[in-house]
């Protein structure tokens, strides 16, 4: 059940990237899609147990620590990419005056002619 909901998040994310014309919405949707895959991994890790993977007195029912390590990396990567995307969006706004991707592409196509 949880995984179906997360799959829905993924579809919303990718759909938002395709359907929303505003650049900021696209970037947010991309971030949502990325986060949904991260949540999928975390759900997988939580099957093994539910306690934080900190070893106090012997191993108990901890979540899978590998998954947590991998997802920390993935989250960092996602943050970097989102930050860079936002910088590019700001620069595009300064040059073209609009955040609407259709508008920007129309101007670029006109320049190309």
């Amino acid at each position, binding site marked *: 059940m949880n995984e179906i909901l997360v799959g829905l998040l993924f579809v919303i994310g*990718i759909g938002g990237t395709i359907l929303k014309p505003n650049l900021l919405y*696209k970037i947010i949707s991309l971030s949502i899609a990325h986060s949904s895959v991260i949540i999928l991994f975390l759900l997988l890790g939580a099957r093994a147990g539910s306690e934080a993977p900190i070893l106090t007195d012997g191993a108990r029912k901890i979540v899978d620590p590998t998954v947590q390590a991998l997802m920390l990396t993935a989250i960092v990567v996602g943050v970097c990419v989102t930050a860079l995307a936002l910088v590019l969006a700001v620069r595009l706004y300064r040059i073209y005056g609009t955040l609407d991707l259709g508008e920007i592409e129309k101007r670029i196509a006109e320049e190309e002619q």
Partner: protein
Amino acid sequence: MISILVLLPLLGAAAALLAATIHRPRLAYAAGFLSLAATLVAASCWRSCLAGGGAIHESVGGWSEPLGIGLTLDGLGWIGIIVLVGISLFIYGHIVAEGHSPPSVVFFFLLAVAGMVGLILADDIFNMFVMFEILSLASYLLIAVKGSGRAFYASLRYLILSTVGMTFFLLGIFVLYRETGVLSLSLIAEAIRARGATPGIAVAAAAILAGIGTRAAFFPFHGWLAEAHSQAPHPISALLSGVLLNSGWFVMVRMMPIFPLLSLSTIFEVLGPFTAFFGACGALLVTDKKKILAMSSIAQMGILLTAFAGMGGTELQDSLLAAAALYQMMSHALAKSLLFLSLGILFSAEGPCPIRSFRELFRQMPLLSLCICVGVLSLVGLPLFGGFPGKRVISEAAGDSPFSSFLGGASVATVAAFLRWCFLLWNASPHRRVDRQDERGNLFGERDAKRNTTAPHRIAEEERGDQEANLSEKGEITEGACCRNPKEKGWFSTWGIFLPSLFLACGCLLVGWMPRLGLAVFTSFLGLRLESEEIPPLFAPAALLETMGILMGGVVLWRVTLQPRVEAALDRFRRRFFGLDSATLAVMGGFVALAAFLWRWPIPP
């Protein structure tokens, strides 16, 4: 110990950034050069260990196999590292000789090279993801260096499409981890072989293929390439198109053995020739010089993909196609980088002035035009040049499938496209405003982000008025600049910029002259077992006749596209600009199609 190959470019990058903060750009350039050269020297230390098919494994940090970071250096990877890092050394030399890139560009260049080396060495799947992302981040910034609106758009387009692809890749890793519980490639392969091809594995394969396809520009996932490679500065285009794109092929080689029971070879049989055909037709349609080269990169990646189709269940390592595909990759990397670097030299050429057209330029720089000829003929696939042997072996291997005619069509269209490219180059005029863009303040120079830019490359229409206005904005680029005495700029800046292109051209020729010897060296180095004891004859009369036929077909096609009616029809098609949304939809659609196909037919019939 192998991790030193990844560490050296990273150390160079750090040193370059440090030199940038103390305002010593020359130190940064030197640091970059030293680190790239040191990587090559370090890699050559392992040559004797790897000859004949050996491999070296390393677990980084002492965490061993199932969950740790594994690095593997085998013969294929070694050749890849030597070739690709070597070519990036030449491209780096070009950047340094041009002289007006800030050290930040050096930093991201070295980061990209480090990511690429890590990708080739990676032995576990999550490490591949991380290296892909390192490579991507460096590439996004390198594309946007010019600072024009179009460059930012190209970078953002690449970013969004690549992130969508990498999200699919991560999804694939998720399914594989859920099914097998391990991350190392060889253990995943064993586990899948034990379980058989479940639908979950099929979806994982589709997702991973979608991810790799987005990086390596297979057919539905190619939407970012034309804009990104044409808007980057010329040496960066050379890096992206010649070097980084080819590293995607290595990832495919590593991934193929994981899914041994799936009908991936059927997919590649269809996708490879179609990608090649699509890329070649795309090259025929566009009019921008750099876009033609970019679309031709897609075509070449399609040819490399067709090599996988001939496997039919055996691993790539065990056949002649591995050596041939490696050969083709090498020649494509050399030729494509050569062409982009030559474009860079031509567009920033400052010789005796006034230079009104490239005809005069070619007369003054005959060596450069020779280099361009070598590059073009190598890409087209003429015998005695680099592109011939690999293409020959691959198309022979793909000969019996019904899609092999696409490969022939792709070759014909490539010939026509390059004829067109040569004539575009011949009639173009340098000193166009756009190509001076990077001298006027790029992304890292932080100048004037409000500039509303740029007319892109046009064929022959030239606005002198624009140029005048431009020249008045920044006084340094005057008409007199091209009359400047070459001695003032120093030997290295004037002549050093030619050296990388010369070396690359020599490489193209070397790769093509003794193909049987070269293929024999490769196969013995990789320790391949061949079915027949020798390499099939490459210069057989049938092959030469076929090449003649392709050439003539290409010339005919080119004349056809010059007809006014055809030109008008193509122009109407060209006006449709394929936006980012359709490209993302194509990636999604490609994934769904792959997943559906693999779900329905997991095992080849």
